[in-house]
């Protein structure tokens, strides 16, 4: 399938710092794409370029294969990290205004808004002033405004910040539903938990550069370290003797004769070898592979890059 969005060699520089350095991305349609990176990495700069709020110094962005132009604005929905509403305006007036700015006809906007308000059970808010609503309530309104015009591409910058867990769940459900209906979602965050839960693909940006991208599954597989966690009842010494040649002990915890051990398999040893070694000595209570979380990957990639940089600067 053709990518919905293609970012090609984008460079962007502000007065004395580089925001983006030769960043390229491909976002496939009907996927949730996670744009990850620490604060100040350049995520928001990239998002602003995709939204045509600012332009790149060089490079180009293709939307559905076409060079990004003002006509695409109506196909994109954007929920910025720094978001707000006119405090003195009524909810109804405000959502109507923002919907029309996105190119919706007055009549359609009203019908769709009523639908969403019903769905979120907030019909009674229509005539309220924004300043009367809590922050979480305002976030709901902002979310509705972002998705109202049924954008093909939805860009959510830290969408869950400010939501309580229940509303965060509600928004997650909506995001997944929108994907089912055909929307593509770019989702910028440094909350790794939600990445694992939602994202199909990710790109990791740090210090203006893309360090890593690909599908979440593959990335996690690549970062597998052949490490397992086993809990058993029996003799710890017997267990140690049985496996010591093929594995490295990372962690040990004992509670009476229940032991819980983390081991990293060395060389070509498979988990089966580990199990075989244990079976005769002990009763296995649990066994699982330790898959690195996105959080671990994130930290290790960012840190490795930094050490690599310092090393290379030493050799220079």
């Amino acid at each position, binding site marked *: 399938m053709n990518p919905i969005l293609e970012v090609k060699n984008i460079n962007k520089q502000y007065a004395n710092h580089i925001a983006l350095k030769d960043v390229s991305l491909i976002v496939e349609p009907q996927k949730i794409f996670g744009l990850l990176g620490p604060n100040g990495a350049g995520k928001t700069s990239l998002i602003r370029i995709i939204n*045509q709020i*600012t332009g790149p110094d060089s490079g180009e962005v293709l939307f559905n294969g076409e060079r990004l132009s003002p006509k695409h604005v109506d196909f994109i929905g954007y929920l*910025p990290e720094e978001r707000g509403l006119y405090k003195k305006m009524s909810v109804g007036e405000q959502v109507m205004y923002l919907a029309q700015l996105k190119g919706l006809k007055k009549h359609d906007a009203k019908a769709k808004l009523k639908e969403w308000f019903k769905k979120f059970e907030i019909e009674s808010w229509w005539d309220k002033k924004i300043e009367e609503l809590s922050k979480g309530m305002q976030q709901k309104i902002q979310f509705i405004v972002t998705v109202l015009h049924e954008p093909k591409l939805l860009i959510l910058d830290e969408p869950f910040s400010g939501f309580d867990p229940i509303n965060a769940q509600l928004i997650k459900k909506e995001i997944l539903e929108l994907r089912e209906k055909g929307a593509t979602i770019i989702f910028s965050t440094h909350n790794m938990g939600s990445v694992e839960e939602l994202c199909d693909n990710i790109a990791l940006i740090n210090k203006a550069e893309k360090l890593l991208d690909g599908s979440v599954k593959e990335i996690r597989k690549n970062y597998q370290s052949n490490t397992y966690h086993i809990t058993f009842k029996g003799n710890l010494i017997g267990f140690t003797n049985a496996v010591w040649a093929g594995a490295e002990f990372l962690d040990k915890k004992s509670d009476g004769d229940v032991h819980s051990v983390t081991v990293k398999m060395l060389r070509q040893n498979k988990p089966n070898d580990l199990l075989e070694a244990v079976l005769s000595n002990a009763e296995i209570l649990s066994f699982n592979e330790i898959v690195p979380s996105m959080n671990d990957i994130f930290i290790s990639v960012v840190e490795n890059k930094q050490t690599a940089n310092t090393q290379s600067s030493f050799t220079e």
Partner: protein
Amino acid sequence: MNKLFLIIQREYFSRVKKKSFLLMTILGPLLMAGVMVVPVWLAMRDKTDHQILVLDHSGLFINKLPDSKQIKFTYGVESLQSAKAKLKDGPFDLIMEIGCNPLNDKKTTPLLYYKKQPGVSAEQYISNSIENILFDYRLQGDSIDLSKIDNARRPVEMLTIKVTEDGKDEKTNTGTNMLVGFICAIIIYFMIFLYGSQVMRGVIEEKTNRIVEVIVSSVKPFQLMLGKIVGIALVGLTQFILWILLTVLINFAVTSIIFKNQIADTAKQNAQVEKVMKNDLSAGVNKMEKVHSSNEVIELLNDFNNINITKLLLCFAFYFLFGYLLYAALFAGIGSAVDSEADTQQFILPVTIPLIASFIIAQSVATDPDSSMAQFFSIFPLTSPIVMMVRLPFDVPAWELILSMVSLVVGFLFFTWLAGKIYRTGILMYGKKASWKEIGKWLFYKA
């Protein structure tokens, strides 16, 4: 284009619907009417009536002092002692004692006794009346014909006449010209400040609300800025028109209801005074003044007709509109560069300096409307809306006017473009106080 219209609409209606707009619309004319009407009203009300008992030992003034609306003279012959007793019980509140031979005195010193001090205007009136009568007596004493004096003393009033290109005469009046020019300039000045700062506040509001990023993902920042400027211009225009209508209405109502009686009274009074004092010189002088003053009103009206009203109004509209647009763009630029109104000071000052300077310049322009300074500042776009308005009633050469207008439009385009560049970057910069240097850099960012 459609989106720009939406923005203008929102900016306009969100302001016009505010209670403060309604309040200002009603209060504005009341204040203006107040400024015009209250002093007159106070002047009419504040005068207390005085009953004066005149003890004239010379006998020169008996029945000669002219009564006014507030001051009534009664003549008595009793002693000062018994007169003072009357001061206690009324009806008199003032007693004036005039010496035996005021005609020969170098300086006449009537004594005025009071319980409550009369106002300056009452004292002035009394002493003027005495002076006038003494003046007549002395002239008569020298057997000088009063009617000759009357005849000799006539007012001089200079008429300035402009000879136009096609050789026709056109009456002008420097004073009126100055007045008209300054009134137009003051209105422009206030409107620029009032609505320019509204633009700035609107921009800051959007920025601190954090709604701006949502909006600029749908429209270009420049469109948002332009929409705001135009929307607020329309608000200003609406308010201005409402003010004029209401002011006219209120003034009309107030004058016709409240002052109706007083005006009629005054007229009656004046007629009486004139009748009583027909043969007296002081009345003659009074009458002369009256004729003179009513002439002045007619002159003033004539002057307004003589100034080319259509041209003036068109120019006023032009300088008002483009002056506002130019400064509103600058105010929008300032608003985008700061995070709160408190931070605006350092940027506002350089923008207000040309405005305030315009007024200082305007004063010397009014005295010498064709000096090279006047020429320069009435063409320079930051000062021309005010300086040119002051110069305009003195007839500015067509080429200068056109040059001034063109340069104002060019200036407007330039400053809007400049402000747009600052705005575009500034609205997305949160939490950082921009410096002049930084703003300079913003101008060169790629959109």
